[in-house]
C-alpha cells in the first residue's frame, strides 16, 4: 500500500470513527432499555423561528444517529479510497455520535441545544485566546507555559480598572497591557538570559497567582465596592445575522471580545502561513541558525512575537472579568491556561487546529455542566472527566504523532550553535 503520512492519518481517522460508531450502536442502542423521550430545544430568544423543539424517543434516537455515523464512516472510507479529504465526513460523523450520546444520556429530559453550543463557545473563548498566545510563542521557538499567568494577570487588571473607572472600555484596554507585561518578563529571561523556559513559565505562574491572591485579600475584599465591582460588557447583536436560528445566538449576539476573537484567529492563521512575517516566524521556530544566516535577527523577532502573544492572551484574560462576571475571583482562571496549552498541541501548533481543539474542550465542558444539572445515568465525577477523555480519544484516534517546531524551547545564540 502506498500511504503518505497524511493518508495514514486519514485512515486512522476513518477507522476510529467506524469503531466509535459501532461502539455507540451497541452501547447506546442495543444495551439501552430506556425509551423515554428526549427533547432538543433550538430557540433561545428572538430568532426567526424555523423549529422550536424536537422530541424523539431515546432508544430510536441513539440507534438512528449511531447508524448514521456508521454510514458516514463508510462514506468517509470511500472518500479515503479515492484519496480525497475526509473533513466533512469527520465533522458529520462526530456530530452524529454526539447526538447518539445525548439521546442516551438525556433520556426523559430536555436539552437546550442552542444554549449548549452557545455556552460551549463562551467556555472556549479564554482557551482560544490562550492557545493563540501559545501559537505565537511556540512557532517562534519560545515555550510558553505562562499562559495561565497571562490570563490571570490580565483578568485581574481588567476587573480592577473597569471597577475603578466604572468603564468596561478601560478594563478592556488595560488587559492586553497586563498580558504583555508578563510576556516582557518571559521574553527577557527566556531570550536575553537563556533561562530554561519551562521552569521560567512555572515561576511566572506562581508569581502571578501569589500576587493576585495577595492583592485580592488585602484590597479587593476589604474595598470591594470601589475595587472589585466592575461593570460587564453588553452583548452586541449583529443585525440580521443574529436572527438566524441556532447560529445567530451562538455566533452573532456576543460581546466585543468574541468578535475580536474571530478577527484575531483569522488574522493569525492567515499571517502565519501567507505573509512574510509568518514565514520568518516559522523559520526562527524551526531552524534559527538558518534564519540568522539569511539576515533575520532571530532574537528580536522572538521578542516581538512573545510580546504580541501577551497582548492576545490579555484580551482572553479580560473575558473572565469584564466579559463574563465583572468581579475578579481568587485564581479564577482555574487552569484554563494549561488547557489552552493542550489545545495548542492537540491542534498541531496550527491556529485553526488549536481553535477546533479549544471548541471541543469547551463543548465537552459545557455538556458536562448541562447534563449534571438535568441529571444523567453517569456519575458526575465521570462527567467531569469528559473533556479529558474526549482529548485522549481525539489525540490517539485522529491526531497521531505531532511534531513541535524543531527549535521550540531552545534559546538561540550564535556562538553556541556552530
Amino acid at each position, binding site marked *: *500500500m*502506498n*500511504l503518505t503520512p497524511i493518508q495514514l492519518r486519514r485512515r486512522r481517522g476513518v477507522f476510529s470513527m467506524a469503531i466509535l460508531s459501532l461502539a455507540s450502536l451497541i452501547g447506546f442502542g442495543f444495551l439501552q432499555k430506556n425509551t423515554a423521550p428526549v427533547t432538543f430545544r433550538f430557540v433561545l430568544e428572538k430568532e426567526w423561528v424555523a423549529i422550536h423543539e424536537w422530541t424523539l424517543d431515546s432508544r430510536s434516537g441513539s440507534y438512528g444517529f449511531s447508524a448514521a455515523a456508521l454510514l458516514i464512516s463508510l462514506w468517509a472510507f470511500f472518500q479515503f479510497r479515492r484519496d480525497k479529504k475526509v473533513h466533512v465526513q469527520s465533522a458529520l460523523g462526530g456530530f452524529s455520535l454526539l447526538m447518539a450520546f445525548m439521546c442516551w444520556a438525556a433520556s426523559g429530559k430536555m436539552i437546550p441545544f442552542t444554549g449548549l453550543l452557545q455556552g460551549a463557545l463562551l467556555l472556549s473563548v479564554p482557551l482560544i485566546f490562550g492557545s493563540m498566545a501559545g501559537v505565537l510563542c511556540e512557532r517562534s521557538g519560545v515555550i510558553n507555559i505562562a499562559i495561565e499567568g497571562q490570563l490571570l494577570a490580565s483578568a485581574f487588571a481588567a476587573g480592577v480598572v473597569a471597577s475603578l473607572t466604572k468603564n468596561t472600555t478601560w478594563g478592556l484596554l488595560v488587559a492586553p497591557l497586563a498580558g504583555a507585561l508578563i510576556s516582557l518578563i518571559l521574553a527577557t529571561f527566556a531570550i536575553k538570559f537563556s533561562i530554561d523556559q519551562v521552569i521560567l513559565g512555572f515561576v511566572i505562574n506562581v508569581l502571578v497567582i501569589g500576587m493576585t491572591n495577595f492583592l485580592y485579600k488585602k484590597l479587593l475584599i476589604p474595598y470591594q465596592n470601589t475595587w472589585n465591582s466592575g461593570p460587564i460588557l453588553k452583548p452586541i447583536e449583529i443585525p440580521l445575522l443574529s436572527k438566524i436560528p441556532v447560529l445567530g445566538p451562538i455566533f452573532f449576539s456576543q460581546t466585543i471580545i468574541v468578535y475580536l476573537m474571530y478577527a484575531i484567529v483569522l488574522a493569525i492563521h492567515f*499571517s502565519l502561513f*501567507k*505573509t*512574510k*512575517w*509568518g*514565514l*520568518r516566524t*516559522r*523559520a526562527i521556530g*524551526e*531552524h534559527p*541558525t*538558518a*534564519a*540568522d*544566516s*539569511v*539576515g*533575520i*535577527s532571530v532574537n528580536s523577532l522572538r521578542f516581538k512575537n512573545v510580546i504580541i502573544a501577551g497582548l492576545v492572551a490579555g484580551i482572553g484574560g479580560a473575558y473572565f472579568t469584564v466579559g463574563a462576571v465583572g468581579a475578579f475571583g481568587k485564581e479564577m482562571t482555574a487552569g484554563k491556561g494549561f488547557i489552552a496549552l493542550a489545545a495548542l498541541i492537540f491542534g498541531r501548533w496550527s491556529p485553526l487546529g488549536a481553535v477546533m481543539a479549544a471548541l471541543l474542550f469547551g463543548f465537552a465542558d459545557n455538556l458536562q455542566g448541562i447534563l449534571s444539572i438535568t441529571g444523567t445515568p453517569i456519575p458526575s465525577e465521570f462527567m467531569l472527566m469528559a473533556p479529558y477523555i474526549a482529548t485522549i480519544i481525539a489525540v490517539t484516534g485522529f491526531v497521531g504523532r505531532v511534531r513541535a517546531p*524543531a527549535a521550540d524551547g531552545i534559546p538561540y545564540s*550564535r*556562538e*553556541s*550553535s*556552530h
Partner: protein
Amino acid sequence: MSVELRAITKTFGALVANDAISLRVEDGEIHAILGENGAGKSTLMNILYGLLQPDSGEISVDNKSVTINAPSDALAVGIGMVHQHFMLIPVFTVAENIVLGHEKTKSLGTLDLSQARAEIARISKEFNFDVDPDAVVETLPVGIQQRVEVIRALMYNAKVLILDEPTAVLTPQETDELLTVMKRLKSQGTSIIFITHKLREVQAVADRITIIRRGKVVGTALPSATQEELATQMVGRPVVLALNKKHPAPGRSLLAIKDLTVTDNRGVELVKNINLEVRAGEIVAVAGVQGNGQTELARAILNLEPHCRGEIQIDGENILGRSVSDAIHSGVAFVPESRELDGLISSFSISENLILDVFDKEPYGKKLAMFPSVVRSEAEKRIQEFDIRTQSVTDPVSSLSGGNKQKVVLARELSRPVKVVVASQPTRGLDVGSIEFVHERMIAERDAGRGVLLFSTELDEVFALADRIAVMYKGEIIDIVPATISRSDLGLLMAGVKQVKA
C-alpha cells in the same frame, strides 16, 4: 570583487581557533583553503559571513574596510555562503527557503513567490540544476539540497561565494558538476573561496591555495603542487597516500546476508534479493552510485529498516527482525552515513557520545550505576588515539569541527570488540591525515580477524581498502569482483553495464 582578511583572531575559551589569519582573495579567483580537521577553516568563514565575531582583525572588500556584524551585512556587500551543515529549513519548500530573508510581498504583506519561482527556474536551466521550486526540502537528497543553497547564493547576487566543504556529501558525478559550475561562475567574475579535503578537486579548479594548520596560516601553494606536497604542508609531516596491505586471509563467515529484500512503506523494493557474505579477515566494499540501495542495505544490517525479508546472520545467528540492540550486542559496529542525524547526540558531551552503546556495560557502568571517572579516562584515551581536536572531553559534541565529529563516531565504533564492522562513508569530511589513520585502522581490524563491510562512493577508498568489491545497481548486487578490476570496468559496472565474461 576582492576580499581581504587581516590578522583575524578568534578564541573559544582557551582555544585559539584562528590565530592572526590573513588572507586575500582576488577578483574572479577560486581560492582554496586546505587544512586539517579543526584547523579553523569554518570558523574563519563564519567570521567573514558575520555568523561569528572575531576577537580582533579587519575585513575589507574591494580594498575598502567593512564591518560585518551579521550575515545581513555580508549579504549586503555581496558575500554569499554555502555552509558545511546546510542552512535550509527542512519543512519549507525550496522557494520558501530561497526567499527567506528577502521576501517580496503583495498587498497585506502576503508573500509573493512567483518571481522567486521564475528565478529558480532560470538559474536551474542555466546551470543544469534539476530543482523543483515547490518541493519540500526535507524530502530532497543532499545533492539537490546543496544546489538549493547555491541557487540562493546566486539569487542574492553573491560576488564572493564561500563554499565550505560542498563536496563532502556529493557523489563523484555531482562533484564534477559542481566543479563545472564553479568554473562557470568564475568566468562570470564571481570570486570563490573553496574549502575541501580532496586534493584532486583543489588541483582541478583552484587558482591559489592557502594552507591553515591549528589556526595559523602555514603557507600558500599553487595547484601545480603534487598531492604529496600539499598533504605534507597541511598535516606537517609526510602522509602516506598509498596504503600497505597484506594479502587477506579470510576465515569463517561472520556476516551472511541471504535473500534480503528491503521495501519502503509504499512497498517499493529498495534492496532486491541480495546475497552477500563477509568472512573473518576480509574487507568487502559495496560500490555503486549513491541511491542504489546502499543506505538501506547498511541500515537493514542494524535492524533499522522496518520492512525486510530474508536472513542476516552474524557469526551464524540470524538477527533480522530483532532489535537494534540485538544487532549491536551480537557484535556489529556501525558507522552511519550521516553523523549528525544518526551517529551523535549533539547536546551530549564527547565522553558521553563515546559510550552511547556500552554505557551500561563494564567497565563504564554496572546495573544502575555509571562510573564517570572511567568514562572520562577512557574518553581521554580515545581522543589521543583518534586525534580528536577538542579542549575537553566534557565539551558538547556540537562544539567540534565537522571532521572531528566524524572521528568521535569512528572512535566509538572501532573501540569495541566486535565481529563485523559496517561502515558507511567512514572518511566523509576527514582530512588526508585522518583518512590515512582510519584506513590503517580498518585494515588492522581486518587483520585482527574481523569482517569489514565498507560502503563508499569514493573509488579511491574502495580500491585502497577492498579485498572484494560488490557492485550495487538499482537495489541489486549485479556483480562481485576482485579488487584487481580496472577503474573503467568498475565504472561501467556501477552504471549497470555487466560485461559477459569471455
